[in-house]
């Protein structure tokens, strides 16, 4: 019954206990027996468990008997906490009517929590504040309540005091969800409209879509149509997540679940599309979809072995289905051959995609250093977006270059304000504002080039604040900058995959640092290898990888032969993993060397 359904999500900063809370809710409602409980049930990807973060949103149905004696279906939709994944967050928000705002009782509000709460308010979600970890010695729930009221501007009088770890406050949370989160508003008698909020590819059943039924109902055997693509299918089966998928005979308006319809072509389903009934029973009006995301970070992905190109394409197709924010286009590099230019939401997103491709699809990849999208204004007045430094228009034809800027909010204990300001200055930051959250913590607002954040900004932020600072940023547009392309020549040849765009004032130090790094990364080979950094025709730095002089196994007698052969085989394997560019073998890490250049 629609009146007994509640759809909600959890908003929290990394480490504030969201996954543990989700586990408790699942446990408490008896959705999984204790035996089935694995820590972080919702983080099912290996990567998520290893890193202790949520990347993909997940959905789970909880059956809860409330104090009023009635049974309610609570659909919990998990959300990622990292800034790179705010697209995933906004998708899960669109499938909910309420959100638990979980804030650590010791640490208080962090920058990312803020960003997600604002998103939730935009979606008109009911927000229930939960102050977690009240069992910890440093817990100060009163201060955190004031923060919530001052910073977010919502009442925190009735915030729930909880400890997911100790099981405190779990009952109250469930009760409050039932009482405060509105039941879904859809009309069960109208034609079917269901929003696709996620999907993944199953080798046996094709595309599995994750849907929120808004109006009408959906049943197996029904003919359906994807409103944006026009593709039609017959529903094989539908169900809910408990968290393991559980087949159902029907999904009603207001519910969240999955749908399988033998969809073989990945391109036929699009996250954000509306599913309706095929034929005359179909709705004419699609649901408001999602804002198309604009990737701001690009890099080249190339197979180490050229024959893996097709496998890489297939893997990207499948991954995109599960990760709508990933975009890619074929590109060719003189140095690396055939590959793809891929766009990401941020660096973490890029790392995750790369790791998923290597793990889940068994690919061996070379990733080139990430860059932002630059805007070139040409002498004829036209503008051109450049997502690959190697494709920058010639200097003679370029009027000027612009780069994306972000507004960054840094929340940090006041002791570290000086360090943060110094860091921001190093990164070409422009100070905008400083505001005290309470007596000991401030929000610093800066505008700075996105490209600076791509390098070691986040690591620096953490190390210069002993881990206390948190960061959120949003792109605010393009600004003209004094930029130029830094090229690298290896053995006299420009290696396009190593080109980067740098600020004029940094060109020399970056060039110097880059060739030094490369000298350490590229193993000594049969001949001297000159490494040069150049701006245009001007060489600004030079290093040499000296020819190898000693590479021979000394002892080799009877008992040793197998062992020595195995050592040689290992050495040969190592060479295979390197990319042959001209006559030089370059290890994978070299293409990311620019990221490791510290100033």
């Amino acid at each position, binding site marked *: 019954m629609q009146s007994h359904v509640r759809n909600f999500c959890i908003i929290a900063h990394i480490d504030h206990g969201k996954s543990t809370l989700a586990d408790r809710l699942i446990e408490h409602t008896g959705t999984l027996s204790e035996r089935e409980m694995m820590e972080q049930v919702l983080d099912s990807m290996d990567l998520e468990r290893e890193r202790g973060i949520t990347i993909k949103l997940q959905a789970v149905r909880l059956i809860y008997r409330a104090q009023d004696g009635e049974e309610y279906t609570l659909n919990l939709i998990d959300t990622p906490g990292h800034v790179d994944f705010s697209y995933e967050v906004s998708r899960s928000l669109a499938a909910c009517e309420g959100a638990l705002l979980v804030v650590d009782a010791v640490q208080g509000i962090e920058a990312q929590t803020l960003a997600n709460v604002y998103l939730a308010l935009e979606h008109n979600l009911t927000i229930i504040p939960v102050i977690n970890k009240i069992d910890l010695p440093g817990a100060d729930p009163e201060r955190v309540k004031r923060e919530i009221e001052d910073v977010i501007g919502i009442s925190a009088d009735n915030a729930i005091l909880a400890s997911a770890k100790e099981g405190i406050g779990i009952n109250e949370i469930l009760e409050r969800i039932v009482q405060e989160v509105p039941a879904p508003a859809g009309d069960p008698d109208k034609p079917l409209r269901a929003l696709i909020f996620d999907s993944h590819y199953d080798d046996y059943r094709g595309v599995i879509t994750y849907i929120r039924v808004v109006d009408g109902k959906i049943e197996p055997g029904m003919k359906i149509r994807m409103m944006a693509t026009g593709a039609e299918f017959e529903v094989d089966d539908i169900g809910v997540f408990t968290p393991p998928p559980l087949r159902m005979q029907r999904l009603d308006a207001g519910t969240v679940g999955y749908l399988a319809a033998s969809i073989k072509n990945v391109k036929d389903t699009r996250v954000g599309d509306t599913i309706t009934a095929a034929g005359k029973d179909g709705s004419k009006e699609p649901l408001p979809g999602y804002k198309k995301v604009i990737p701001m970070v690009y890099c080249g992905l190339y197979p180490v072995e050229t024959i893996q190109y097709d496998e890489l394409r297939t893997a990207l197709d499948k991954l995109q289905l599960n990760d709508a924010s990933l975009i890619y286009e074929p590109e060719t590099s003189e140095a690396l051959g055939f590959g793809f230019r891929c766009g990401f939401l941020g660096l973490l997103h890029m790392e995750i995609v790369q790791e998923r491709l290597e793990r889940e699809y068994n690919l061996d990849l070379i990733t080139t250093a990430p860059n932002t999208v630059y805007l070139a204004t040409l002498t004829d007045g036209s503008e051109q977006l450049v997502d690959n430094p190697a494709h920058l228009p010639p200097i003679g034809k370029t009027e000027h270059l612009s780069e994306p800027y972000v507004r960054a909010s840094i929340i940090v204990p006041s002791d570290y304000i000086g360090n943060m300001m110094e860091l921001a200055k190093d990164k070409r930051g422009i100070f905008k504002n400083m505001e005290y959250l309470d007596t000991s913590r401030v929000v610093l607002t800066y505008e700075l080039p996105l490209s600076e954040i791509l390098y070691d900004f986040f690591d620096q932020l953490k190390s210069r604040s002993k881990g206390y600072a948190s960061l959120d940023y949003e792109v605010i547009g393009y600004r003209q900058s004094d930029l130029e392309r830094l090229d690298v020549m290896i053995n006299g040849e420009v290696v396009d995959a190593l080109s980067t765009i740098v600020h004029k004032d940094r060109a020399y130090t970056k060039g110097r640092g880059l060739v030094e790094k490369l000298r350490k990364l590229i193993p000594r080979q049969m001949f001297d290898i000159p490494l040069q950094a150049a701006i245009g025709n001007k060489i600004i730095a030079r290093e040499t990888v000296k020819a190898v002089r*000693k*590479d*021979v196994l*000394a002892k080799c007698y*009877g008992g040793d*032969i*197998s062992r020595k*052969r195995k050592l040689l085989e290992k050495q040969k394997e190592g060479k295979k993993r390197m990319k042959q560019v001209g006559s030089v073998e370059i290890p994978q890490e070299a293409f990311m060397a620019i990221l490791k250049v510290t100033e």
Partner: protein
Amino acid sequence: MAAVGLYIHVPFCLQKCSYCDFYSLAAGEADYDRYVRLLQQEASLRQSDLPVDTIFLGGGTPSVLSPAQVSAVLQGLSRYFAIHPDAEITMEANPGTLTLDKLLGYRAAGVNRLSLGVQSLDESELRLLGRLHSAEAALDAIRLARKAGFENLSCDVIYGVPGQSMQSWQATLERLTDLELPHISLYSLEIHDDTPLGRLLQSGQIREADEDLIADMYSLARHLLPERGLWQYEISNFSKPGWESRHNLNYWQNGDYVGLGPAAWSYLNGVRSGNASDLNTYAKLIARGESAVVEREQLDELTAEAETIILALRTTKGLSNASFVARFGHPVELHFGCIFDDMLASGMLRRTTEGYALPSAIVPIANQVFTRVLP
């Protein structure tokens, strides 16, 4: 019938050297006697009428055995193998374990070549390497060996020792060559993780020698030794003409050999097999009259060919086309023609009247060639 080599592994040491990751243990007289009996038993199990023209007692430290024990070993071997009267019989010896009497005894037992583990003539290097003897003791051992009738003498020396200077390396080489030894082997120090040196390295108490310094040391030896009449005949081995180690030449020609004793390896008819390395396991198997072999590797043809090429290219003489054809029934170019052409063109390989060899400049970086030859 092609002659085979016999290798006898003696798994005992008075003290393990700081760089050694081979199997050896400290033991007493009773263990030595038991070991000699086991060896005789294994020889009887593996008896063969293949002609044997070299015997090599390696270790470990074979010179922990008494002359009587060595004699018992060699007599046992002659009972079960067809040993040529002119066979080269080499024994490795640690200078710290030798006396004139012992040396006379070994000579009388039939040993006719001695390989001395000198390693260095610098006291601080010897200490770091965990050697039991001083430089003076090493030089004494050479004199005593000669007195006992060992003309065919070889010394092992190590370069690339942490802290070793070019000067000390040159001094070690010069002092040894002043004695007009007929044979010298040079090894660049490899530091393995699970050794005392490896641990010193991990804890930062020593630093590995610089690659360029090691290269310079090798280069110095390759100039200095031939000036003093010792010609390089293999990557690590130098000798007066005619004084090469016949036993080791057989390895590099990928010839057959039979290994006896714990951790010894054999290579017969394309099968490489290894004995149990632990003395107790070995003893148990032999006592039951079973083979001590616990590891066996049958090489596929391409790997066998590649090994033959790699081993032959270690020698200055290089690979002989004729013996390759005799062994595999087809020329080496059948499978390796493309790679060889490529390497000939880039100067990594040269032709000889008999086949192929490494150009002198490539010898120090021979792995660059070997890794390309492997399938």
